């Protein structure tokens, strides 16, 4: 009994704060998606915006495109981070923490500013175009990268590589070196050891890297705004636009609900494989 009282004292404050400022907003957002208009009354509920959503193929297309882009971002970040994590864990001994820290240091600086850096590089007057013009590869005033989906992809991969590297690194560090010795003693070649011991044991790390890159990328709108232009917009821009410019809050709420459902489904599947508490936090 005494124990129960203590637990309640500990858990009630965070639970109440999360209920009011985290759960309640999500519930209200769901209600809001049934609202008839932004400034009208809450009741009667209406499915007007659901109909609009269902009848607008471009919403689906953008959601699909954004999912593809997020998938690519996650896959490429992992692909680029994997060799470096492998090298650091298995080849660099005690120095690996220092080397890793150097590598992920950019990740600790502002997201917005890192995207800004790429705007400077990829911009039409940007450094990349200047370089290409000066070596004569393209002619003046023909921006090749800014305001396109590839610019968004490059910037996003740049932003997320460090976050993909951390779980991979953590997963590889947990591998008992004796397993490698055992595999070799039993006659496995280095390639066989990699495919049949190292890689399977790294899979949980890969899964969590994928998850933690894919999800935030799916809701992106800042990067597309800064480097993507019209052809590079993502689903998140659609939501942001309803609140910042179009002022169609019910539709914005609905678009958010759709994204939330997608994310929740994905988290649920992911969680069945890897409990979230076991995901390495920040390192």
């Amino acid at each position: 009994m005494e124990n129960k009282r203590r637990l309640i004292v500990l858990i009630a404050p965070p639970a109440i704060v999360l209920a009011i400022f985290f759960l309640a907003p999500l519930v209200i957002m769901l209600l809001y998606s049934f609202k008839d208009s932004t400034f009208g009354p809450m009741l009667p509920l209406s499915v007007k915006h659901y109909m609009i959503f269902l009848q607008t193929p471009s919403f689906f297309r953008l959601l699909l495109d954004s999912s593809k882009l997020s998938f690519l971002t996650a896959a490429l970040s992992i692909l680029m981070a994997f060799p470096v994590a492998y090298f650091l864990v298995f080849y660099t001994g005690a120095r690996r923490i220092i080397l890793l820290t150097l590598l992920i240091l950019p990740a600790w600086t502002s997201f917005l500013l890192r995207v800004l850096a790429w705007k400077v590089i990829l911009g039409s007057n940007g450094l990349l175009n200047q370089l290409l013009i000066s070596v004569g590869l393209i002619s003046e005033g023909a921006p090749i990268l800014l305001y396109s989906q590839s610019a968004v992809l490059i910037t996003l991969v740049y932003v997320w590589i460090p976050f993909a590297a951390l779980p991979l690194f953590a997963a590889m560090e947990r591998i008992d070196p004796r397993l490698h010795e055992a595999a070799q003693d039993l006659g496995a070649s280095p390639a066989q050891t990699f495919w049949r011991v190292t890689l399977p044991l790294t899979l949980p790390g890969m899964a969590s890297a994928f998850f933690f890159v894919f999800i935030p990328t799916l809701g992106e709108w800042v990067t597309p705004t800064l480097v993507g232009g019209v052809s590079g917009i993502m689903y998140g821009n659609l939501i942001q636009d309803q609140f910042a410019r179009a002022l169609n809050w019910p539709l914005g709420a609905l678009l958010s609900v759709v994204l939330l459902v997608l994310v929740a489904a994905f988290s649920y599947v992911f969680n069945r494989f890897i409990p979230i508490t076991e995901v390495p936090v920040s390192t």
Partner: protein
Amino acid sequence: MKRNFGKWLGWAYYLLLLLFLQLPILLLIVFSFNDSVLLTFPLKGFTLEWYRQLLGARELLNAARNSLVIGLISSGVATALGTMAGIAISRYNFPGREIFLNIATLPLVIPYVVLGVAMLILFQALNIGLSLWTITIGHAVINIPYVMLIVSARLSGFANNLEEAAMDLGATYWGTLMRITLPISAPALVAAFLSSFTLSFDEFSLAFFLAGTDNTLPVYLYSQLRFPNRLPLAITTAAVVILVSAVILLVSEWLRKVGTERKIRRGG
């Protein structure tokens, strides 16, 4: 021989990736000293003019101060609440623990644009005007799960026999909490506070939706990006922020390394 080749290849790749990740940041820093409004090569010459202007930019400094205050308050709140939750989940087995854990870690995975508009709708529905406080609340919410996981990871590295011993010797439960549990968690608390602070200080997407007339630094910088002639000042601010947050994070990582003898164990 073969291993040497692999090692050589590994170093080459490491250095290449390091260059790719650091170069954009270095460019920002280099251009903050460049004597031109245009961000183009060749560099025009060395100047401290942008840094001088930075010291006189009232709005910008105001935004920076807002970010600082929001960072301190929201991290303080998140650290307190997250620590309570962290102690609860690592020291108690209670019905609903799984549900609580699932909900409390959800802010980690929810896209900020969704949480941002949801909170915006809530505040509007409750007739709460947007201000620096609404941003503070948003930042506290997203930081609670981080603190909770860092603290519970730290505590699960220690069996609770120290706490039991203290209580056997006559300490009250809350006395034990103050004199055993919290000191044990101290390095995690400091690290959690610092990483919450950095997250809040840099956070843009939530703050964008929850900001009233007063801006945080990222929101202010974003508003400046539309004006090309203000880009150098934005970049100079970026250079300062980057260097300061790098220092803060190196210290916090160091504290965490020193403080955490054990790693997060699987299946714990």
